[in-house]
């Protein structure tokens, strides 16, 4: 049985509204499934991308729904590469400490969990600048 070949790069652009998180998840889901990952791994990739976009909506665009989030999916020999670009406020991932749930509990502070999950779910997570835009590149090794 032959499945239709996906033509990479695949792109999706959405506005920075939380409403669009489900659109992003569906886009990632169909692509990741066609690459042959297990359901559990597909779930992990979806979560990592959701968390990345949620962070962009929350921190880069401060919940303004007018910002742009551009997602590009690429394949290399052994990697599925997800690149997410935004033009909001720059964010330094080094300022975010590893979450410690007991500390969070004491301080009633919520946050930092998303980035931690991204790192756990993906093989590589790299923050950088790309032509004045903020870029987060996430890699999952192909099955």
């Amino acid at each position: 049985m032959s499945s239709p070949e996906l033509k990479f790069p695949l792109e999706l652009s959405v506005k920075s509204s939380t409403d669009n998180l489900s659109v992003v998840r569906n886009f990632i889901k169909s692509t990741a499934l066609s690459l042959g990952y297990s359901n559990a791994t597909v779930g992990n990739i979806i979560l990592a991308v959701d968390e990345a976009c949620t962070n962009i909506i929350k921190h880069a665009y401060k919940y303004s729904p007018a910002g742009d989030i551009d997602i590009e999916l690429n394949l290399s020999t052994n990697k599925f590469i997800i690149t997410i670009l935004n033009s909001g406020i720059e964010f330094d991932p080094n300022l975010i400490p590893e979450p410690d749930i007991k500390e969070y509990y004491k301080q009633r502070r919520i946050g930092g969990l998303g980035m931690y999950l991204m790192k756990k779910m993906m093989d590589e997570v790299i923050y950088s600048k790309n032509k004045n835009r903020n870029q987060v590149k996430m890699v999952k090794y192909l099955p």
Partner: protein
Amino acid sequence: MADFNVNLRGVGSVSVIDVKGYLDAHTAPELENMFSKLIVDKQFKVVVNFDQLNYISSAGLGVFMAFVEQMRDNQGDIKFSNMNDSVYNIFDLLGFPVLYEFYKDEKEAVNKFSILG
């Protein structure tokens, strides 16, 4: 569009919240509103039944962190039940089992409140 639903039931003195569908940054405010309402109504003993929840992101987990202390300060708690493995894995990765009680079955979680009075 994210499909999420939250429903409240009373089981004795315990409030059971059924969550259904996809709990993310878009739908988490619905759950937050439910917890805020419980606090206004002074209902501090809460079981969240995850039987029909397909998906959770950190925005959803944040809701439980935001409200649990208030519940505990008032002789209540937030306990979890009926979670599928993929949802439990996210809670586990973030260390929740150290601070929260998880039960296979709703009845077990509800009974835990009555044993303690």
